[in-house]
């Protein structure tokens, strides 16, 4: 595979939590090709945002990092000075809460053109012209006026469009989008997603799309990686993630989510609570205590990532359970249909 934009291999990150070094990421691997959208899905504490931060070189200085992150073949950890600045203009980030990532006392124009002016040496007038052009691309017509406004004068949805436009101004090759629509209303989410999707295709931009929403990831991304307790447990083509999961956690997550087309008498809740990465025990499957398919072996061996039907699964029983996990979510459906009939 020479045509890879980003390669993450065996990424393990330890941070000091309450004075002790603890793993927040454990053996994470990811591939993103040019123009490819990869979803990163998981519950809180699973390590999604930490993965994005590691890729963006935004980890705290004292973090202990093992493994490699390569961008267009170059090791990201070794970048310094102008190479690091160049990398940062190639890899752009957008975040969940735009208001937390923009200086409230500076004008939109200042914020948008800063990277162009300081990193790429573009003159102010030219930077402003490009900013207005980019604003038009994200559906903001009156760009000149917007550049003179302050963040508090824009709604959340509008501000997130500004963030997207700003991120794209340096002509990045990879976009790290960390729950960019979670704080937005659903109709605004749909618009922002449409913009992201259009521009990504137009600019042939790779994207790592982080979300807790399996359905959103499945709808937007080519492939999706599912994280649990600091590890990637499944990577699959998004199209089949919902109906044909490879890992019991993915299946359980899908089955736990209420369905907009039918009510179930009870949801298939996953017992217990999601583990944070640093709580996960060594030498066993982190999901085993909550897994309906766990055997003794799952509590005694840490499963490796294994290839399965063109995807990856970190489950000892993945091969054996092949096809059966899908039946599980189907049986939920028939159960709920019955209960609905009973309600009627």
């Amino acid at each position, binding site marked *: 595979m020479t045509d890879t934009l980003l390669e993450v291999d065996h990424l393990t990150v330890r941070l000091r939590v309450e004075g002790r070094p603890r793993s927040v990421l454990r053996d994470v691997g990811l591939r993103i090709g040019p123009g490819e959208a990869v979803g990163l899905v998981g519950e809180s504490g699973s390590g999604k945002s930490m993965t994005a931060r590691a890729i963006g070189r935004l980890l705290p200085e004292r973090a202990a990092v093992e493994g490699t992150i390569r961008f267009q073949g170059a090791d990201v950890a070794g970048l310094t000075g102008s190479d690091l600045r160049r990398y940062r203009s190639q890899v752009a980030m957008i975040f969940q809460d735009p208001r937390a990532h923009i200086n409230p006392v500076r004008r939109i124009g200042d914020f948008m053109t800063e990277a162009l002016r300081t990193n790429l040496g573009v003159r102010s007038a030219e930077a402003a012209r490009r900013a207005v052009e980019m604003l038009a691309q994200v559906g903001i017509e*009156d760009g000149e006026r917007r550049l003179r406004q302050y963040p508090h004068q824009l709604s959340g949805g*509008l501000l997130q469009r500004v963030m997207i436009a700003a991120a794209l101004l340096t002509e990045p090759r990879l976009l790290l989008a960390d729950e960019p629509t979670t704080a937005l209303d*659903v109709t605004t989410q749909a618009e922002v997603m449409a913009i992201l999707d259009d521009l990504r295709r137009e600019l042939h931009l790779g994207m790592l799309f982080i979300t807790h929403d399996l359905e959103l990831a499945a709808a937007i991304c080519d492939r999706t990686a599912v994280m649990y307790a600091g590890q990637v447990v499944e990577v699959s083509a998004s199209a089949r993630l919902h109906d044909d999961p490879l890992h019991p956690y993915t299946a359980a*997550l899908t089955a*736990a989510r209420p369905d*907009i087309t039918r009510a179930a008498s009870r*949801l298939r809740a996953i017992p217990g609570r999601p583990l944070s990465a640093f709580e996960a025990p060594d030498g066993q499957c982190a999901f085993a205590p909550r897994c309906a398919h766990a055997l003794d072996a799952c509590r005694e061996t840490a499963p490796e990532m294994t290839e399965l039907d063109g995807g990856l699964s970190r489950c000892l029983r993945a091969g054996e359970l092949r096809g059966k996990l899908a039946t599980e979510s189907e049986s939920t459906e028939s159960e709920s249909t019955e209960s609905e009939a009973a309600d009627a």
Partner: protein
Amino acid sequence: MPEPVLEVAGLRKEFGELVAVDDVTFTVPAAGSLAIVGESGSGKTTVARMIVGLEHPTRGTITACGNDRSKPTRAARDRRRRGREVQIVFQDPYTSLDPRQTAEQTLSEMIRLHHGWAADRRRARVTELTELVGLDSRQARALPRSLSGGQRQRVAIARALAAEPQVLILDESVAALDVSIQAQVLNLLAEIRDQTGVSYILISHDLAVVRQLTDQAIVMHRGQVVERGATAQVLDDPQHPYTQRLRASVPRPGWKPARRPVAAAATDGEASP
């Protein structure tokens, strides 16, 4: 026809020039469940705040269990009675609990306030409530800071139930929870309804959650009710263009998000002062 436990008629709320809620009318039957669906600025939370008495209506009436509650009351007795009629669980389990009180203390205080009762009986009821919401004895004696979001939300639900209300308002109460925990809490709410016959008003932007928990739904847009009906019907066959747009905005397999005309979207997105 079962007697409605809650009736809201011609409700209106103005904040200065802004009409946040405009002529909203609905009823909730005993043991029924109503969803109020809408996005930010639709007025759905203002309706909830008026029902519990945190805001006063500019016009209109709110009647719970046959008692009018549209006007503020000074009498502690009346305020407590209102608390036994309607309780609310807020979205954020991190800010809605007293950080210095354990779950047991929170519940015990609520029971003393609303029912009096001797210490023994209070203790027994606290145990009942913590079991009902699935908190173990360690969690029941813990301060909020050492509980997870899902556990805190269980405490908040138990606290609301301690007053033994006829109506429980759930204001985005499961929105901040992880999917696996959200399913547990939704099942818990279904369980509680089966056991106690409490009525729910679910305020939510999440249509799948609405489908799961409610029988009836109203859709609010810019302060007004634009559509109402059985939840299944509103979601499967939305009539109002806004409800249709809302329904079409929900991600699903094969979903292609639609871009609205640029100019309209841009004006629409302007923040209100």
